[in-house]
């Protein structure tokens, strides 16, 4: 024996091996064909014109036409859809109000989720797994159903109004369903587990001796919280905010079922352009602009996730 392998040397890294190659290639090719290429097609169609045809846009890129066919198709590209997005104030409003709703609801989810995650991390170790299970369980049950369940509660003759009337807090029923308030309630409710889990993961790791040291040095609990606990939980806070903000910006189901006709959100606009107006190129342009808005947060999210910060990796289970 001449060399002794040190631990970790068996990283199959340096061995050329067909099985190893396939392990990367299969998911890589899959995602390349069904995740990346589709975006390029969206981009291409966003520069096309609507047509009454099947598919309902023109030009149709026909690769059978060879290079000249592709060049011809490129010549017909138009920025009309993007001009239209800037001309009609409705789209700008929808983007802005989506971002506003996403920012406000992310802050609300954080405000509601933090005390819960904090309480969980401070709970006796023996019951923590059960609490975690209870938080995760709604995450597994259908999103659509959970949103639907709020319709019966928030309706004019719904359970919340019945309860408030019975308490005597209000004298006539409130209109909550089909307003922005209902959308906020729906978002906070649906996305709460996404915030609690990374927060809990960060708070649970917190070394209690740090707080004892702060207390020994005469730091009041509230001050210790802001000086010690909160800064150390920041990776969880950031992870949770990304996990809520990005998907909420493009949310469709919640504004559609709980929001009113004047609740503008871009996911809903895109859906309507596609399904009601059958304007595929315009829907594509809406998607491209939405993606441009979200690309910075998504890239930051990816980098943090890959470095394992904020326990994003622990989210689903």
């Amino acid at each position, binding site marked *: 024996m001449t060399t002794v392998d040190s631990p970790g040397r068996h*990283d199959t890294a340096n061995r050329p091996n067909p099985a190893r190659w396939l392990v990367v290639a299969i*998911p*890589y090719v899959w995602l390349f064909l069904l995740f990346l290429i589709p975006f390029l097609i969206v981009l291409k169609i966003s520069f096309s014109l609507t047509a009454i045809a099947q598919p309902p846009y023109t030009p149709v890129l026909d690769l059978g036409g060879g290079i000249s066919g592709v060049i011809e198709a490129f010549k017909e590209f138009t920025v009309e859809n993007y001009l239209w997005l800037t001309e009609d104030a409705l789209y700008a409003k929808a983007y802005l109000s989506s971002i506003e709703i996403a920012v406000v609801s992310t802050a609300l989810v954080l405000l509601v989720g933090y005390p819960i995650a904090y309480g969980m991390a401070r709970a006796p170790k023996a019951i923590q797994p059960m609490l975690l299970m209870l938080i995760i369980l709604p995450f597994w*049950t259908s999103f659509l159903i959970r949103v639907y369940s709020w*319709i*019966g509660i928030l309706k004019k003759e719904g359970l919340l109004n019945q309860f408030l009337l019975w308490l005597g807090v209000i004298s006539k029923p409130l209109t909550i369903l089909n307003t922005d308030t209902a959308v906020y309630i729906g978002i906070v409710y649906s996305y709460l587990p996404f915030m609690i889990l990374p927060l809990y993961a960060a708070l649970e790791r917190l070394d209690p001796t740090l707080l004892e040291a702060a207390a020994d040095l005469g730091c009041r609990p509230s001050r210790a919280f802001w000086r010690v606990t909160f800064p150390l939980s920041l990776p969880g806070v950031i992870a949770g905010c990304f996990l809520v903000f990005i998907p909420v910006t493009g949310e469709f189901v919640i504004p559609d079922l709980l929001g009113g006709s004047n609740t503008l959100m871009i996911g809903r606009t*895109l859906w309507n352009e596609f399904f009601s107006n059958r304007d595929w190129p315009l829907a594509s342009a809406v998607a491209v602009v939405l993606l441009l808005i979200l690309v910075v947060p998504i890239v930051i999210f990816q980098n943090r996730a*890959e470095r394992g910060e904020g326990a994003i990796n622990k989210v689903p289970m």
Partner: protein
Amino acid sequence: MNRRASWFNVTSIAFGLAFLYLPILLLIIYSFNESRLVTVWAGFSTKWYVSLFSNQGLLDAAWVTLRVALLSATAATILGTLAAIALVRFGRFYGRTLFSGMIYAPLVMPDVIIGLSLLLLFVAVDFGRGFWTIVLAHITFSLCFVAIVVQSRLSTFDRSLEEAALDLGCPPVRTFFQITLPLIAPAVIAGWMLAFTLSLDDLVIASFTTGPGATTLPMKIYSQVRLGVTPEINAVSTILIGIVSIGVIAASLVTKRREVARIRAERQAAAGIRNGI
């Protein structure tokens, strides 16, 4: 911890759990309501469950959804596990940044964008839309969730067993099936379940990628909800919630029991080594 803080903690957990569970609980309770109105209690009845089983459209949709979920979860688990191995074990390889980007992006990407882009792909390559396009779409986004779940298990587990097998001359592929896969099995199963429920749940991506003849349960529920709230939807929802809850709780109990058994076996093995076997 002082007493005040712990009272605060108990209250916030209680409030949080009430907030999470009350709507689901009310939904379940009103599925047994005699009245057609979802908000007025008129006595206990199971008639909505009975009428459910004569609603052929709903049953067909449930069957489509179940098949889509089984197929897509299984394929996504295989692809996602491969992706996780590539991410954790292969260090730097050509195009790794793009690869991990394509794994993490779908986790937060709005559904409307994924749905629209996949639909346009299927139209561009002239792939007949329907059952199979939904399956392909579901595989694509759920494989990323599987990859994340399996990856977090792979990156924390003790590699000495694998190294021992390799040192003893076991080929890498066989090492994977005999050592690695049994060790990461709980995460793989969890990934499969997550993929399954994601598929069961998806409305937006399925609506974009479907074609004539393939209506999934969420699509059916959505179109009925738009017409108004009915106890029948509460009944379907209750059945779905029941199935998923039982599945998740059972799986977590099984993995916990397995974990305990594994730790005990490892301790015994260690004791055996100490005793000079």
